[in-house]
């Protein structure tokens, strides 16, 4: 089973990297960009087909390592 974990900064946390990217896009003349926030994507392959177990394992992975929940939130998506 394949899953994608998306880790992003909480909205209250400043993202200077996102701001710099936003500025660069503007200077490249890319139109209509209002704001950019940078995050991380993890593509994870899981053994077996038990969706509930996979959700549990990925939550565990995020809480233990993939995200720092002081500043980040995460979301899990499964490939259909």
């Amino acid at each position, binding site marked *: 089973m394949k899953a994608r974990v998306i880790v992003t900064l909480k909205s209250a946390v400043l993202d200077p990297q996102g701001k710099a990217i936003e500025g660069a896009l503007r200077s490249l003349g890319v139109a209509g960009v209002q704001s950019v926030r940078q995050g991380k994507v993890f593509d994870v392959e899981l053994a077996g087909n038990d969706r509930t177990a996979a959700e549990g394992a990925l939550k565990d992975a995020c809480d233990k390592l993939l995200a720092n929940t*002081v500043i980040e939130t995460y979301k899990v998506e499964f490939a259909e």
Partner: protein
Amino acid sequence: MKPAVILFPGSNREQDAVRALRLVAGAKPQVVWHAEHELPKGTDLVVLPGGFSYGDYLRCGAIAARANIMDAVRAHAARGGLVLGICNGFQILCEAGLLPGVLVRNARLRFVCREVLLRVERADTPFTKAYRKGELIRIPVAHGEGNFTASEANLARIEGDGRVAFRYARRDGQIDETDGPNGAINGIAGIYSEKFNVLGMMPHPENYIEPEIGPTDGRGLFESLAGALKAA
């Protein structure tokens, strides 16, 4: 005094820490590999040195914080044992949950490598007895992610309990967060744990100990530790 300096893949200031402990505190530190499960018998101070453990992959300090030895460090801290984390060591302590908050990218996105002025916030801890409260000391920093931040509740607790160890200060002793090297909230350069036995700080006191090299304002921290651990 029996210090253990933990070595992670990518640590690079462990010998600086060893040298400071030797020269200033007169100790014989043991360097302990991160994959070990136990600290040397009788260890009374654990130092997590600066560097770039695991190349700062994922988040700085995140992977080192999950190393085998960290369970032993956690147990040592829970017993009241002293733990000092410098730079990457501070990041590791935050990631390991031994200190609250987190160190994020410097506000101006630049790696800063220079001397800063620190204000010593209290001189009654095992790490700072050799300083005076409010004293300004010159210590170098070298980091790209030293911008300390914490949840509002945690920050209120840290400030309320007087757990800020050092703040980035101006020459007149005032704190100006916009003027600091990294944008850290309230100018925080280092914090203590609840019981004041764990200290994490971004600046490098171990690099300002020898007059041949420059200022020696870092000696006070190691003198304090030597004094605290001799008395114990």
